[in-house]
């Protein structure tokens, strides 16, 4: 994807000068120190950084889970920083798909039911079986999380995230708890979704090897953006190794 192509696209997210300060007892932690960034339609972004760099805080703010201490964040024309907690809940419900490091499936629900949990509350969901088919798990639909491998659980989590046809897919260390081989399968699934559905996708990782599959790589360190790199040619997830 070329630089010019990126710039002609609509910005899905516009974050301007956001800072985030946590007060932990008597210590103040500056998680973000003035970050400005735009994420574009259909883009595949990798947020790269070490532990404590602020990448998770940024993703949480974009996902409507957290609010910055200062600065503004726009999702399309909605100012997230001016939204009420219940508006943020509706924003997450309608527009955002989340994938977590530890999958966070509901253990008492089967794979299909975990997906249905979302399709039942979404405005224009896909068929739960179609969502599972996208991650190639249609034959495991009636299994409970405890009966699935880590990689399979994460793919169910991806199916659950995309079943509502979200505008954005936010993945926080999606391969963090997986071995390389399984991690790659999961990343392939995410790339597949991004390609097929055109969902703007942001993946957080501390694993630089993953950066190659992104359109753009935003590096963070110490709460600031330390570099933005556009990949002229994306590497297929299957080619990754770490």
């Amino acid at each position, binding site marked *: 994807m070329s630089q010019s192509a990126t710039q002609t696209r609509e910005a899905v997210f516009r974050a301007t000068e956001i800072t985030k300060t946590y007060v932990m007892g008597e210590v103040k932690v500056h998680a973000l120190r003035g970050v400005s960034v735009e994420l574009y339609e259909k883009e595949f972004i990798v947020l790269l950084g070490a532990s404590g760099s602020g990448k*998770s805080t940024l993703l*949480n703010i974009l*996902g409507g*889970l*957290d609010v910055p201490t200062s600065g503004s964040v726009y999702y399309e024309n909605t100012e997230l920083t001016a939204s009420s907690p*219940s508006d943020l*809940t*509706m924003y*997450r*419900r*309608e527009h*955002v*798909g*989340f994938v*977590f*490091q*530890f999958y*966070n499936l*509901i*253990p*008492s*629900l*089967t794979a299909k*039911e*975990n997906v*249905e*949990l*979302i399709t*039942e*509350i*979404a405005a224009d969901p896909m068929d739960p079986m179609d969502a599972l088919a996208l991650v190639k798990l249609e034959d495991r639909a009636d299994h*409970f*999380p*405890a009966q699935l491998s880590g990689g399979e659980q994460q793919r169910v989590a991806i199916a*659950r*995230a995309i079943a*509502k046809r979200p505008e954005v897919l936010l993945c*926080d260390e999606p391969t963090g*708890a997986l071995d390389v081989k399984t991690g790659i399968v999961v990343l392939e699934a995410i790339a597949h979704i991004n390609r097929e559905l055109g969902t703007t996708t942001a993946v957080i990782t501390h694993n630089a090897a993953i950066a190659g599959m992104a359109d753009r790589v935003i590096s963070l360190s110490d709460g600031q953006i330390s570099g933005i790199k556009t990949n002229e040619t994306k590497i297929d997830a299957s080619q990754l190794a770490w």
Partner: protein
Amino acid sequence: MNKLDRKLLRDLGQMKGQVIAIALVIAAGIAVFTMSMCAYASLKHGQTTFYRDFRFADVFSDARRCPDAVLERLQSIEGVTTVESRLMFNVLLDVPGLKEPATAKLISIPDSGESRLNQVYISRGRMVEPNRRGEVVVSEMFAEAHEFVPGDTVTAVINGKSQRLTIVGIALSPEFVIQIQGGSMLPDKKRFGIFWMSRRDLEAAFDMSGAFNNVTAKLAYGANSKHVIDAMDHLLEPYGSIGAYDRSENVSHQFVNDELLQLKTMATIAPSIFLSVAAFLLNIVITRIITKQREQIAALKAFGYSNLEVGLHYLNLVLIIAIGGMVLGTGFGIWMAAELTEMYQGFYKFPLLKMQIHRSAILIALLLTTTITVIGTWLAVRKAIRLPPAEAMRPEPPPDYRPTVIERFFPTQLLPAALRIVVRNVQRKPFKSAASVVGIAMSIAVLVLGAFSLDALDYLIEFQFRKAQRQDLTVGFVEPATASVIHEISDLDGVLESETTRSVATRIRFGHRSRRIGILGLEPSPQLFRLLSESGQSINIPGHGVTLNSKLAEILGCELGDFVMVEVLQDERPVVQLEVTAIVDEYGGINAYMAKHQVHEMLKESAVASGAFLKVDPNKLDDVYRELEMRPGVANVSTKEASIKSFKDTVAENMLTMRAFNIMFAIVIAIGVVYNSARISLSEQSRDLATMRVIGFTRREVSAVLLGEIGLFTMLAIPLGCFIGWSLAWILITGLATENYRIPLIIDTSTYAFAVAVVMGATLASGFIVQRRISNLDLIGVLKTRD
């Protein structure tokens, strides 16, 4: 303080809401236990010391007129240590300010000024002096009801003559700790009093010099009262004795013993309910803590803490909660016992009814609490003890859910996925779910149990005093009245209907069992005094045989169609065999009935009457009273409505107080169970709930998942709780069914509704408290941790 103990205190601080809720459940159980035991000890102590210090007799007998010379022979009966003769007469009183006539039981005081048995305790004023005429000492209950003080006077109709009596003292007697007129079910302190008078006075008034009509005896320790009774009957038979009896037939003694039995029952039932609920709550709390602290346990063991130290650490945690609750409950129980003892003082008259702290009860409470706690939590604590450190380091394997049997019959596909979580959670922990349901059900049951007594009492009064007994006045005659006397009374202005009765003193025997009982002869198809079946159907007295009430039949062990031996204890003393031709249900007393004409035939007498039931024009009641009072042949008059009111005033008030405590305790259980279950669910599911919040579920939707479980439990608990309440009520009334009262198992729908409403309110309140915590779920933290 070692660091492990400090951790323990901080852990307790972290869960203080749950700690308080569980401690309160234990406190409630221990409070009722301590209260019952202390009240028991107080009442028992009051009873024992009063009986002993004031020489309460063991055997009693009435006679018509027995010469004093017989006394010596009575004294020489083997086993008798002391014997005393008395004169005893019931007379009518005209009490200022009281429209209806009151009845006084006059009892003689020997000229020495002190009785040898059944001594009176003078609480105010002085004893009567033998040489002064017209002096009386009045029982405290009656004096209090009329605010009499020494120096006041009352007018009595003694042997047909009006006589002014001067009250010189107020007294208590072990024989009349509670005052109930013979034949009445209810104590009526306004209309029945005991008057002690000098023997000389009574002898003169009733022409009884050199004779007595009542005798009491004290027996040697270990003496056989049955032998003494037989010997006494043998000696007194020629003088019109209707049979000697022991303390067990003394009404006052029976009432105090019934109360003692009730306290014992309470001391057993309450702790069983509350402590088993508490054991369950401690179990779920400690199980959750141990699961959450797996890694901490591993670390402790890795650092070298022994299995025993780890086990004791968790056992101490629950013991601190339990013993805290026990201490609180003991304090509250002692306070309640003091209140109850004070309440007793208005009901039972003892010279010294001091609140006794039952020390061994406190020890038992401590043992009980500790044992229940250890039993309730042992499995969970053992898990912590046995957990190998290496295994504990790893997080617990994910819970293994499977579609369950129930889902095969009840397709959960119909439910939204969010509610399927609820169903699966409930099914995965069947024991915990069932115990939660039973716990909530118990609070409903406690409420039903606490509230039903008022329903039962209302029903009892309605059944016994409105449906069965429809008279306004009951009149007793001194001597069997002839037809002319009966006519005079039924012709009194204001008397609308009248029915006469003939009662006869008998001893009924069946096999080796026997009972002294007055058989009441009733007119054919009586309208004012009806015998009813349990369903309220009027039963006609069969023209032959004898009708027993079910309690008497049970005591004798006889059934319909059996033949009982009836020994008449008066006049010619015939002995006849009678068939039990009907058994009726009554809620009070033990009674037997016959057709009136049969009694006449049995006694070979004309159609006389020993009493009458009257229905009176309400506007002319006062006139009728006045007329009856003036008639020498009338021994006593009792008014139904007045005694019902007086009874309701005392008993209903006590019941309302107990009901308030029960409501409080039931709320404690309901909140204890609901709050703890919800907190545990929140703790177990916080990660799932937070995940749901993150992926777009609203707070309300997530609360539905959390509280859906407790809501489901409550719904299931409602029918179960009503059923348990009904069963406990059944156990209670069966255990408390005495000769004086049987409480009917009547529970109004409104009582169930009330119990359900209170518990639902408590559920909503605790649900609301827990639900607020959903707002504080750590949405970000959950994404980063593995549980």
